[in-house]
Each structure stands twice: as C-alpha cells, then as structure tokens.
C-alpha cells in the first residue's frame, strides 16, 4: 500500500507563481529519474495570419540555445547531466520537457528554465530550424500518411480555425519569420499566466516549490493569450482521393470535429473511441479490418479532445488493391458505433482493460509524468487518476452510444485517401 503523499497517481497543485500553475508529482516506486515540463499557451493555433510556422519554430528553438549557452554548449550541459530536452507542439499549447537522472534534478530544472525564459534565437539556429521545417513541409506533401492527415484537417475545419493546420506553415510564411518575430511570439506565449509547470521526481513538494520560485518567477506579468474557436458548423461529407504515384501503401483517414476534454460526456466518449479503434488489438476496427479481413497492418482510431474542442480520426494503411474495401468498413463501424449501444460484455472488456493499464503508466517517471501533465493541463482534480477507474465503471452502454453520437460525426465526417490509388505503381530503382 503506497502512502497518499507518495502515490504517483496523486499530484499536488502548489501555490501558483505569478499566475504560473505549479504541480508536484511523486515518482513511481523505484524510479531513478526526474521529469519536468513547462506547458505554455504557445501552440500553432496562435500563429498570426501570414506567420504560420512560428509556434513550431519557437518551440524548437527554445530547446536549442538559451541563456549563456549556445546550441552546442547547451547540448553539452545536458549530456553532462545525462538529460534530454524535448518539445511537443500542438494546436493549443507547446510543451518543453526535460528528463534525466534524479540526482541531477536541480541542474535539469535550471536548464529547463533557461530554455523557457531565455531562449537566444541565434541567427544560425533560426536558419537551421527553418531549413528543417521546410523539409517537413515537403514530407507532409509527399508521404501518404502525413498528407492524408493534413488534408483531413483541412476538410473538417473552416479557414482560420486553429485546428485546421499542422502548424508547419508554408515556405512563404517561414521566410517572413525572422528573429524579431519569433522572439515576439515567445514573449507573448511562453507566459506565467496561462502556463503550467509539472515536476515528477523524488525531491518532494517543498524543494520543488522553492526551486520553481528561484527559477520560474521572472515571467513578464502580461496575461497569456487566449484562443477562440469559431462556432461549430456542419461539414460536407466529402471524400478526397489524392493520387501519390510511386508509393506502396494507401493511407485512409476518416474523421470529423469532436468534443472538448472538459465535456461531461468525455469519459463515455473515451470508451466509445476505445471500442471503435483506440484499444490496441481488441477494437472493432482492428478486429474487422486486420484480424478478420486481413486487409491492413494497422487500423485504429483516435479521439483528440483538447481544451476548447477536438476531433476524431479513424485510420488505416492498406494496399492499392484493398482500400476500396477498407473505406466502407471504417464507415460501417462508425455507423454501428453511433446507432447501437455496445453489449455489456464488450464494454466491460474494454473498460477493465483501460482501468488495468493505469499501473503500467507507473513503470517510469516519464510515463507517470504524462498522466500528471495531462490532468493538470485540463485543470482536473489532484486525485483524478485515482478516481478514473470508478468514473469509467459508472458509464453505461447507452451512454457510450449517446456520447458516440455527439463525439463521432455529429457535425459530419470527411474521408481522405492518399497514396497509389490508381494501382500499386512502385517506384523502380534506377542505375546501380
């Protein structure tokens, strides 16, 4: 039995620092590492028109060079501490995470604070990050999976919607993003107010509070920006077919707008997604498309529930001669999910699986940390993950069906198929 104060499933909100919410999470038993994340209102939904790509560039550059350290020196400092500094950018937020041995926690927290508060935006770093993002833009156009994902978002969200893009911008918008504009984006979006700091490790709440006060209290006092979504509107049930010759696999995406994480129907919608395609190996899509149909290597679904709204995607990767069978299967499973409640047996199986996996998240600090970041970002109670099993167990089959109707296709759905849709068309090696 783990004492409550040492239970990694219970995180603690500490006193905020000038608007910055600070959270401490005890590490899983036996863990030897520390993980800390700053989350700021710095996602690509905040990119100004004509400056698309700014959020992604800034989140990359803050992990490149900071404070007194240029890019190489910052990397060396991290290596010496045995840590890594990574970033994740999403429509509503950007996350900067440091991970490393627990005995180096103070140094790692210092390096995280430098990255968040004092990025350098050295001109050569800006140029390099821009070159890398240009290649990513090309990849989104050339790779069937990325291309299908990109086109789906364009199909289901109207122009100007923060979820409509993948945040990579265009060659033109990147050219506009010089050092000054990037520094401005950073100043406006890596804020205390609207920001969150989560630390998972053995140091304890008192030391973390003191260290956070030392390292993270120099945010400008300005309030963080807020994102607004346009009013939801019905979408056309379109199907886009994008011919990408020379590839082997066709990627299929079916999706539409969905619920926000704070919606009271979220637990039931979560289970609906697990039943549809979220739960590995057991889901309806996996069973029908792969296990019974033998038509694809992967078939799954995802519910991306964010603060303000969300979207869902059902996905499969299949052959040029099979995608026409796979698309109706995805559509059919969606229809069935919306029309009929799952049986009690199916719901129980999926639910107990979701409940049972919580201990698996406690294998390492970084996995446990993800739970705390997720819950704290959405302002959920400190014991959210302790109560999660009972929340799921209260959901009834009819509620899953009702939530599926609200979360999966209430505003319509679009389908995108990208790849060698005209036939296998494999690229042949030349020369040699």
């Amino acid at each position, binding site marked *: 039995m783990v004492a409550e104060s040492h239970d990694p499933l219970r995180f603690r909100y500490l006193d905020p620092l000038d608007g910055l919410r600070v959270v401490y999470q005890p590490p899983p038993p036996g863990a*030897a590492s520390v993980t800390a994340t700053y989350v700021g209102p710095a996602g690509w939904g905040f990119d100004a028109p004509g400056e698309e790509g700014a959020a992604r560039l800034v989140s990359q550059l803050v992990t490149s060079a900071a404070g007194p350290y240029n890019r190489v020196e910052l990397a060396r400092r991290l290596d010496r501490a*045995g840590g890594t500094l990574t970033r994740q950018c999403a429509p509503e937020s950007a996350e900067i995470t440091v991970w*490393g041995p627990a005995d180096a926690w103070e140094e790692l927290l210092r390096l995280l604070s430098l990255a968040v508060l004092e990025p350098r935006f050295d001109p050569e770093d800006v140029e390099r990050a821009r*070159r890398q993002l240009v290649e990513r833009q090309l990849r989104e156009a050339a790779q069937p*999976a990325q291309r299908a994902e990109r086109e789906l978002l364009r199909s289901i969200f109207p122009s100007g919607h923060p979820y409509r893009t993948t945040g990579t911008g265009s060659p033109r918008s990147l050219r506009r993003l010089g050092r000054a504009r990037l520094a401005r984006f950073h100043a406006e979006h890596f804020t205390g107010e609207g920001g969150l700091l989560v630390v998972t490790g053995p140091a304890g709440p008192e030391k973390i509070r003191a260290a956070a006060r030392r390292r993270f209290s120099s945010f400008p006092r300005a309030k963080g920006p807020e994102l607004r979504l346009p009013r939801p509107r019905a979408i056309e049930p379109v199907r886009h077919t994008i011919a990408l010759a*020379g590839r082997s696999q066709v990627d299929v995406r079916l999706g539409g707008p969905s619920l926000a994480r704070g919606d009271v129907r979220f637990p039931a919608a979560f289970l609906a997604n697990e039943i549809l395609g979220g739960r590995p190996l057991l889901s309806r899509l996996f069973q029908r498309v792969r296990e019974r149909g*033998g038509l694809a290597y992967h078939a799954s679904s995802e519910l991306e529930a964010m603060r303000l709204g969300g979207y869902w995607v059902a996905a499969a990767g299949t052959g040029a001669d*099979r995608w026409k069978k796979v698309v109706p299967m995805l559509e059919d499973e969606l229809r069935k999910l919306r029309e009929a409640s799952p049986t009690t047996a199916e719901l129980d199986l999926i639910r107990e699986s979701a409940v049972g996996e919580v201990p698996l998240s406690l294998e390492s600090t970084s996995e446990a940390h993800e739970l705390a970041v997720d819950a704290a970002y959405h302002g959920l109670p400190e014991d959210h993950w302790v109560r999660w099993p009972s929340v799921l167990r209260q959901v009834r089959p009819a509620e899953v069906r009702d939530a599926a109707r609200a979360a999966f296709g209430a505003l319509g759905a679009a389908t995108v198929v990208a790849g060698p849709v005209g036939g296998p068309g494999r690229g042949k090696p030349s020369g*040699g």
Partner: protein
Amino acid sequence: MVRHRVHRPATREFSLANGLRVVLAPQPESPTASVWVWYRVGSVNEHPGITGASHWVEHMLFQGSPRYGKGEIDRAVIRVGGELNAFTGTDFTAYFTTVPREHLEIPLDIESDRMTRALITDTEVARERTVIHSEREGNENWPEFRVEEELYQLAFREHPYRWDALGRRRDIETMSAEQLRAYYRRFYGTRNAVLVIAGGFDGTRTAAEVRRRFGPLPPTGDDVRVRESEPGQRGERRAELAGPGTTPYLQVGFRAPALGEDATPATMFLDTVLGGETRLFTTGSGWGRSAEHPSSRLYRGLVDTGIAVRATSEWPPRVYPGLFTVQAQAAAGVSLDRLESALLRLLDRLARDGPTAQEMAESRTKMRRATLLAYEGASRTGFRLGYFSVLKSPRLEDEIFDGLLRVTAREVRDRAAQLFAADQRTVVRYRPTGEGNGS
C-alpha cells in the same frame, strides 16, 4: 578483468534440463511484471524462398494454439490492462508482455504454450499474408527503408544479412503455411530461447512456477549458427535509387565487426562521436535513439553548415559482422554530390585526426549517465537483460561498458581509419523525382 560494472537489478539465472535459460530480476516495489521470451532465431536463419519467415512466424504466434483460440491471447492480456507485442530482427525474435504484477501467471501460461504448440493453420496464414504485405508496403512508402534495403543487398552477397527481416516481396507472396510450420518446428523451442521476467514478484515462488510450466517442454530447437560467411569486400559499391520524396538522401555503409568482438568499444565510441549516441547506451527515455545531438560531429559538420537537415550514424549490434552506417538527408537545394562529398570528408578527417580529448570525455560521460536510467521499469529491465542474455549473458553489458571506459582516442582513431576505408564502403543514394506529389 572487468573493473567497471553497470548498476542493474540483481538477477537469478538458471537453466532447465530442456535447455531453456531463465533470468529473473525481482524488483519488489514494481507495480508491474514483464515477461520476455527471446529466441535466437531471426532473418539470418532464413534462405531465399523463405525470407521473412521469422517475422511471419512472429505474427502467427498471436493467432492461437490448442489452448488459446484465435484472439484469446490478446484478450487474456489486454482485459487486465496489460500490453503485449513482439519484434523480429536479423539475429533474434522477442515477445514481451507487461501486466499488473498480480497477473504474472497470464504471460507465463501463454509463453509456455506457444513455445512449442502454436497453431499455424492454412486459413490464418492466408489471411495474414495481406497483413504482412501491408506492413511491408507501409515501410516501402519511406525512402529511408528503400535505401537501407538496397544498402544491405549490395553490401552482402553471401551472408543472410542481405535481406531485411520483413522478407522479400516475392517470398511473402509465395511462402506456404507448411514452410512456416516447418520453420517454427525447426527453430522454436527451449534450446534456442531465453526467458526473462522482471518486476514485482517473489523470486523463489516464480522460479518454481517457471520450472512447473516450462520444465515439461521437450528439448527442441535446431542449431541456429549461420555457416555462410561474407567474403571480404574489394572495392566500393554503389547504387542510386529514384522515386518520390522530399530532398536527396543517402546512406553509406562500412563493413563492421560483430558485437562482442575486440573492436566493439572503439566502434561504439565512433558512433557516439559521429552521431551523438550509440544503441544500448543512449540517454533518451526510449529504447532507441533519442533526439537530435547538436554537439555530434555529423550535426556540426552537416546540419549546422546548411548541407543537411538530418545526419546520424548507426551501428546496430549484431551477432555476425554487419555494417556501420552513416545517413544524411539534404537540405532543400543541396545536391547529392555535395552531400556525399561533405559527409565523406568529415569521415576522412575523423579517421586522420581521431576524436578530440573533449569528445572522448563527453562520450564517456554520456555513456556513464545513460546506464543510470537503463533499468527504470520492469519492461525496460526485461528488454535489456534479454538483449544481452540472448547474445551471451547479462555480464556482456559489463564487458562492453568496461571497454568503453578504457578505450583510448588513439584506438578510436585507428578504428575509424580501418572502418572508413574507401574500398570497404557501400553507398546508396536516393534522388527524389519531385513527381507524384498529388494536388
């Protein structure tokens, strides 16, 4: 004499009369238990006509046995919140299941059953054929996969490393269920397996449970040693592929030693100096390579200078002599010629001058720090103990680590000079055609 050892959980190792090797690593505080079975069977044990058999058998081991009907293995594990998967490489195949600790008996029952009693039916093989195809097709969408497949095909003429573990397309189309059953019967079994259990359990009780479940299995599994050896390379080999893609890309492969040979520490050092880290001694939170390494030679020499957007090296540890590879993706507007000559110049410089004292010190620090977190969690522990055990024993890690801390800059330089010789390299370049990107 090994002076430096990696700090890892205490293990209890024993062998059963049927040849099964067992490694137990109890971690009393762990909320999970992770069961790994590593078979010394991989694509090196195949031959033309049945390339991809190891990987296909891996898929079939989830498709049922007399005790577990189709889908029941997945359901048994996932209904308690566990996760399971498997992967196939050139030299081994590994199956793992991690469950909440109170459900340890589930994976033990599954693994003891499918070690010798998997059903590989004609019907399921026929259905799985398109799934395997689809997996291969997904990989083929990436230029990096095509280049790597071509590289190994070109660098090896005799040794089975010349095909990818996924198998050749033609063999996937024609391999029969009977061929897969024969392959499974021949190689799978107690004599070619290592069972590793890590996490929250009692060592004595679990050892007894392992003996009870696995002890009665017959001693099966043919000799897996590969007889073919690759003749020496006499001159550079090269190929150029063309197809859809973003910017020019290339991989250069050099004939490299097997893991455990004397040259292992110096080769791992080269990998770290060039690419920022080496497999098995990575500072990332995952098992593979972690993020970018801006202080590495390749990054500074190719990415910082605007020639590439990505550049890294890799020495996949293998049982038989394999390849040390260096790969780079050009920045937009940079030609393949420019990319290749910059990359080769950089390698020449390292072979001529060796690593700096700072690079040696930094690489050592990285490796030392990496080992601190290598055993966090039952799943990672199971992976790592299994990896070294299937190659030799958990002590192999200490031998390599000790070598890494002793190797000198001069030895690394000499290794680079030998490894990066022009007549030992194979170059595969990928030229994006810029066509077929849809509209």
